């Protein structure tokens, strides 16, 4: 077809699963080795495509959870019970299996060392995935950038990237976790939803002009973005990403 050969395309590639770890009861971190991967920016996405034996295809977008400095492209996949794609990725996919993906794509919800700080990251549930990429990148490329991370989960056992969060704390990142359901005995973190009052206590104030990123379910992101703007943050410095 005329023109087709000249058109730039996002090429579908094959990634080989080199590691797969359960993050929570319903969430896995999948590490892929992708030949010819040209690098990415923290916060960018890939499309993942599954093809059924009858040729039916389903495609989903996932945040990349690994830093550009990492040897693998990692995805954090939250299992959606009636989903077409995620149950396969969390329950069926095994080490050494091949997965079709293309990317990276998405230039809006990204942070890299050149942008500097301070950095304010606010996640609901598995919305922490792109922030793992950003904070791994910070540790590797810009450890002096001031950064704060606030993660909201229903229960402590829903927290993703626990080992990494501890490491981030060791490198000077202020990490706060709040649980929105009844906290178990011994929980010494915060409880309750992310409100303007909570943001006032743990987030950079607007006067610091932070780069603010909010990622999570739609209701969470809208509530947090509204609270940020209500507390004086410049809407143009608040970037949001929503899923489901």
């Amino acid at each position, binding site marked *: 077809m005329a023109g087709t050969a000249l058109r730039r395309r*996002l090429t579908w590639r094959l990634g080989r699963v080199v590691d797969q770890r359960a993050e929570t009861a319903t969430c896995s971190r999948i590490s892929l080795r992708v030949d010819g991967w040209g690098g990415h920016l923290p916060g960018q996405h890939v499309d993942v495509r599954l093809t059924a034996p009858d040729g039916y295809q389903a495609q989903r*977008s996932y945040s990349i959870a690994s830093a550009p400095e990492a040897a693998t492209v990692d995805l954090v996949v939250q299992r959606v019970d009636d989903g077409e794609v995620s149950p396969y990725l969390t329950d069926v996919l095994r080490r050494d299996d091949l997965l079709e993906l*293309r990317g990276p794509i998405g230039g809006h919800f990204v942070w890299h060392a050149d942008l500097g700080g301070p950095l304010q990251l606010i996640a609901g549930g598995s919305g922490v995935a792109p922030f793992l990429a950003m904070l791994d990148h910070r540790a590797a490329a810009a450890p002096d950038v001031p950064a704060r991370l606030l993660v909201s989960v229903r229960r402590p056992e829903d927290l993703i990237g626990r080992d990494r969060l501890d490491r981030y704390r060791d490198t000077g990142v202020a990490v706060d976790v709040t649980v929105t359901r009844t906290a178990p005995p011994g929980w010494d973190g915060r409880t309750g939803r992310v409100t303007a009052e909570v943001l006032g206590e743990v987030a950079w104030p607007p006067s610091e002009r932070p780069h603010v990123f909010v990622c999570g379910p739609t209701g969470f992101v809208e509530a947090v973005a509204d609270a940020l703007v209500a507390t004086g943050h410049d809407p143009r410095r608040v970037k949001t990403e*929503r899923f489901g």
Partner: protein
Amino acid sequence: MTSPLDGNAAAGRLFDVFSFDATVTRVTCAGCAATEVLAELPVYADAPGMVLRCGACGQALLRLAQTPGRTWVDLRGSALLEIPT
């Protein structure tokens, strides 16, 4: 109706059509004149195609459907696309 995704869910398909990263485009709604970056628009992907809506008034800004060998794009709900070049 399920909750919407955001513009990143449409990023790959839009790249197939426009050959650039369309998620950083700012889209002005032809209905209410609100302007938002495409990456943050609510996207309904459970339809036969994909529908990107205005976050302020809900108007369909961009509809995209794929058939074998063809992609269909309806932009009548958008007044303006501001594309970083």
